[in-house]
């Protein structure tokens, strides 16, 4: 019923994840699937030693100046493969620490707990958690363990993906592009001195006002799997994908950019709903392998469609910020802004991936 069985020699299996036995390599600049996350983090640390350092046992990324006494620590994390999220957002005015798990696998409680301890400056720690069963469960356990050490922890779950039909009886919606915006805004609020309950409330408010939807032109290859997660025909695309290379809600024939944009934007706008008079932050995100030429082209069309509905783009972000490895594709995120959010978005930030005002 399943392939192989107990009679196979386990030794022959060890190292399977290393260079596949037949010498087949992937189209990736990596050495070994079993060390890709750590090697990449080592590079991040080497490149941005002024901002952050990386601990490896357990693995987390943390600001060089943590803990900051009196400041709430802001921690996020999740599987790797979404770079620059989350490690690339560690630094002044954004995350105090990030916990990267293996590729597409949420971290275990150990690194989350360790990061939580390191960034606690006495004012408690906020966990920003993307809504995936694994992330939620592991952050939950870490928070319980931290509480047992008298660290105040609040967790806010981000679930902005309108591609997933929500229901009381399901795992709910995924956390996707809205996470980047929440991390920036909450990071700025923490930097200005907001306390833990205020930050949690603000983060829930951001989550309540942000919606996203994504699509893929190609699949991606998880390093330890060694082959594309799904097969997509030359003339096909997936609509309603998340950020883990999982297939989406629908497979459709390829379409022009304008039609793709409309497929994504329609459900996003309708869901909140966004409406005439709203000021929004528009985030056009690439899935990792989509060049800026295409993202700006899409951005232009989204802005026009929004303008036609009386929705004003007050702030924007265009680029590959929350990704699925080398997947080609994009997502559109809209956040309904208020004055406070604009101010916090504009506040100085200095991280490997986002920087302004510094």
């Amino acid at each position, binding site marked *: 019923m399943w392939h192989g069985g107990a009679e196979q020699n386990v030794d022959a299996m060890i190292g399977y994840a290393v260079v596949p036995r037949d010498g087949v390599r992937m189209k990736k600049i990596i050495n070994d699937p079993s060390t890709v996350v750590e090697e990449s983090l080592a590079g991040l640390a080497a490149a941005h030693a002024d901002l952050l350092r990386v601990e490896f046992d357990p693995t987390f990324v943390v600001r060089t100046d943590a803990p900051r006494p009196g400041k709430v620590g802001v921690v996020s994390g999740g599987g790797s493969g979404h770079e620059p999220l989350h490690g690339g957002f560690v630094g002044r005015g954004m995350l105090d620490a990030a916990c990267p798990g*293996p590729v597409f696998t949420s971290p275990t409680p150990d690194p989350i707990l360790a990061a939580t301890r390191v960034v606690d400056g006495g004012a408690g720690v906020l966990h920003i958690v993307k809504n995936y069963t694994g992330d939620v469960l592991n952050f939950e356990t870490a928070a319980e363990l931290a509480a047992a050490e008298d660290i105040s922890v609040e967790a806010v779950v981000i679930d902005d993906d309108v591609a997933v039909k929500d229901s009381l009886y399901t795992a709910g919606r995924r956390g996707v592009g809205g996470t980047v915006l929440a991390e920036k805004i909450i990071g700025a609020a923490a930097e200005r001195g907001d306390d833990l309950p205020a930050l949690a409330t603000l983060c829930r408010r951001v989550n309540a006002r942000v919606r996203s939807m994504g699509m893929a032109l190609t699949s991606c290859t998880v390093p330890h799997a060694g082959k594309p997660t799904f097969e997509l025909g030359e003339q096909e695309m997936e609509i309603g994908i998340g950020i883990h290379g999982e297939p989406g809600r629908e497979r459709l024939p390829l379409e022009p950019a304008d039609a793709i944009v409309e497929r994504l934007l329609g459900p996003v706008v309708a869901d909140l709903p966004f409406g005439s008079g709203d000021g929004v932050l528009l985030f056009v995100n690439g899935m990792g392998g989509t060049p800026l030429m295409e993202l700006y082209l899409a951005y232009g069309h989204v802005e026009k469609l929004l303008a036609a509905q009386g929705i004003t783009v007050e702030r924007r972000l265009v680029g590959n910020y929350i990704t699925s490895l080398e997947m080609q594709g994009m997502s559109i995120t809209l956040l309904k802004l208020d004055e406070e959010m604009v101010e916090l978005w504009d506040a100085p930030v200095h991280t490997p991936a986002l920087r302004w005002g510094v």
Partner: protein
Amino acid sequence: MAVTTQDLVTFVTAYAEVIAANRAYLIDLDAAIGDADHGENLDRGMKAAMAELADAPDEVAPAEVLRRVATALVSKVGGAAGPLYGTAFLRASGALRGKPALDAPDVVAAIGAGLDGVVARGKAVAGDKTMVDAWEPAARAAEQAVSAGTPLAGALAAAADAAEEGMRATVPLVARKGRASYLGERSAGHQDPGATSTAMLFRAMADVAARGTGGGGPAEPAGQA
């Protein structure tokens, strides 16, 4: 015919081997309706569990074996399966606390506690297309068999059969929990990876029980070519 610490180690070893052998298969199942990591995650976790057990002194209690496995799974697997299997082993360990060896009702209690742990953490019910769809019938079958006086090996064989049936029954289901739920209707037609690894868990248990009685060195595989 008491189950000893050594039997549990043999079972855990057998499960680690099955998972290693089926790593790619579980990745493939997860690729179809999830994110292609279930086999990799469990394999990493069970290797860590084996490392935890490698330096276990012979006199540790059965509960300690399961506690070590739980710790390894919680701290090395991550994702959804890490906390779920970790909690299952932790609760099973709790159910066996203080027992130097286990009888059939103890094993049934441990299995039941494991299932309760999965449900407590994951909030899935039968039919959600998760590992619960294999755990629940397996726990029920073991309990009924032991209540009816079936010896442990037979009860665990019944549990493994039930788990595999539950696993197969996930194929037509539309997922309501876990990552597969994001696919909506497209999740139907695929076997749940977690239910599959759970069926492997019960089959490993049954195989070890079938091989022989407690005590002594590594059990010899029985009835193999």
